[in-house]
């Protein structure tokens, strides 16, 4: 058995997710990163909100809380305040963290609470049947935007950087890079935020014209380049991390 699997509740597998869903890849990258940093049930807690991705926390072999929709960040801040020795990780979706939970992101970022937020951005509300989220691309057809999405997507990077926190971006295609930036964020001593571009074929990809989860993952390869600077904001098509 591979060592990092000790960080998962194997009895709960297989996951409830659709075949090929990117959520499993993010769980794997985080579990491997935690394993390499010796983070485990004795020193780490994971908090999630609601959504397909929100179920991730429950697959980890440690104390976790599946909170109300949008409320993962304040619960995580409470845990960190009560017990500053713990590593506190928020793992949740784009809808959960940026729509209903967006206000909490503003304030945790302002307070620079020492937690790590991992936002799994599949550009959709996967769990409820594929409605547009704040990160759905302009003109994309979804269950709630049959004529195309009229609104531009939210850019979360400036919100995190406004208070000189660590912002990182990666994709499920760039698996080793994803692991590296997660480790970087976990070791950071202030508020840190990792945005992971992930694939939801069932809720987003099918309507967007993809034929298989593989095609969405390979689009990440085509559309994102690695940034070498850690001081400048990432461009729209860049992955990397920024800490000013």
């Amino acid at each position, binding site marked *: 058995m591979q060592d990092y699997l000790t960080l*998962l509740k194997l009895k709960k*597998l*297989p996951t409830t997710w659709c*075949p*090929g869903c990117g959520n*499993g*890849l993010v769980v794997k990258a985080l579990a491997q990163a935690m394993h390499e940093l010796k983070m485990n049930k004795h020193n780490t807690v994971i908090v999630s909100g609601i959504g397909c991705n929100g179920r991730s926390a429950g697959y980890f072999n440690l104390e976790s809380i599946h909170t109300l929709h949008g409320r993962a960040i304040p619960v995580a801040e409470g845990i960190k305040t009560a017990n500053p020795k713990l590593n506190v990780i928020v793992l949740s979706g784009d809808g959960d963290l940026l729509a209903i939970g967006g206000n909490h992101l503003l304030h945790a970022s302002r307070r620079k609470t020492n937690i790590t937020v991992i936002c799994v951005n599949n550009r959709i509300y996967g769990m409820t049947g594929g409605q547009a989220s704040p990160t759905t691309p302009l003109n994309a057809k979804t269950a709630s935007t049959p004529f195309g999405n009229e609104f531009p997507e939210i850019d979360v990077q400036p919100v995190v950087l406004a208070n000189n926190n660590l912002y990182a971006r990666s994709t499920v295609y760039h698996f080793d890079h994803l692991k590296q930036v997660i480790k970087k964020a976990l070791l950071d001593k202030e508020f840190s935020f990792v945005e992971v571009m992930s694939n939801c074929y069932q809720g987003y990809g099918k309507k967007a014209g993809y034929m*298989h989860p*593989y095609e969405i993952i390979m689009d990440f390869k085509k559309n994102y380049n690695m940034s070498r600077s850690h001081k400048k904001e990432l461009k729209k098509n860049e992955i990397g991390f920024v800490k000013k």
Partner: protein
Amino acid sequence: MKKKFKVLINNKWCKCCSLCIKFCPVKNLTMTEQGVKDSGKCIGCKLCERYCPDFAIEVQEIKK
């Protein structure tokens, strides 16, 4: 001597998504009625292990 590898598939966790098959650079993996099959041509790159979203693959070197 050239190294040899075997691909262990955990059928209890595999959801037959075919990502491993699509990522394999030497077309070693195929989908069958019984699930994903290893045809013995593995070069040990571990791309299938990395991209399986369901933790269902482990690639091992065959030691003689």
